[in-house]
């Protein structure tokens, strides 16, 4: 009998990037690699803490938390084309 069980971590199949109307635009030269954006991102789609953020646009919903929380204001939200 095949049990109706979901496999762990399978939500990654669900690409949520198309929810987005704004997207983060990062001024890499200003980034201090503090990890704040990566820590607070609800999607966990900004790469590893301690590195310059690399946004995975397959999942970014464009909430703007990263831009609001960035201590050096190196992230701007710009309209998605």
């Amino acid at each position, binding site marked *: 009998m095949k049990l*109706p069980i*979901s*496999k*762990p*971590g*399978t*939500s*990654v*199949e*669900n*690409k*949520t990037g198309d*929810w*987005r109307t704004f997207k983060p635009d990062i001024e890499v030269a200003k980034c201090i690699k503090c990890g704040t954006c990566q*820590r*607070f*991102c*609800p*999607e*966990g*789609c900004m790469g*590893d*803490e301690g590195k310059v953020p690399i946004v*995975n646009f*397959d*999942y970014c*919903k*464009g*909430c*703007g*938390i990263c*831009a*609001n*929380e960035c201590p050096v204001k190196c992230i701007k*939200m710009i309209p998605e084309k």
Partner: protein
Amino acid sequence: MVEELFVSGHRACAGCGIATSFREVMKAVGKDVIVVNATGCSEIVSSPYPQSAWKVPYIHSLFENVPAVASGVSHALRSMGNDHTQVVCIAGDGATYDIGFGALSGMLERNDDVIYVCYDNEAYMNTGIQRSSATPWKAATTTSQVGSAVKGKPQGKKPILEIAAAHKIPYAASTSVGYPFDVAKKLKKAMGIKGARFILLFASCPTGWGLDTAKSIQATKLIVETGIWKMAEYENGKMTGVFKPGKRKPVEEYIKLQSRFKHLTPEDIAAIQKEVDASWTGLE
């Protein structure tokens, strides 16, 4: 790099504070865990069949029985000789303060070996923003609307942390997703203790609060900085610590961010300020 155990692709609204909080909670507790999830936003957004955003064993049962399910899982593990796997309950304020309250009290009274994490976003959000007993005074929800006679919720918030602590469990603590290091620290501390542990985690809901998604985390910091929300610790029923935010900001800074409070008069805000000030007597 700590592995993400609550992964992308979940269906939480943009800017959801609970999604950030689950990432934080799971990073702190690690892989040797069984998550027992109550009905609510957390379950709806993370586990629509056949997908799961949890990278660990996970069970969802009902709204009202999650502490009892967790007690059972914990007893089964311990009976089988497993004394290391953590059983972590994840439940919202509706399941904790209201619907599962009896089962929660039972779990705490028996001191079952479970970490219970209540993410408190102050209303039933997944069913369309109905008031719960965690909804604060005057907040507008779809069942505490603003009309000519009554404006928002007439009652205040149930003191669930004090109620949990009153069971004299080894550890009860409150924290906020805006303070990720505090969240991690309290979960790590809870993991080192046996018995029933209760963590009350304040998490934002832009959809339900009428809050700009970008300010979702900012609100969870402001509620601590204004002193409305206390990040406290109780051990065996006694308060053993509280985070002091320094010079508290005016409560208005937190309130004005959210449209659920937009009908509040200056007198209402003054009343909230007075209550917050009084609540800090003897703690500062």
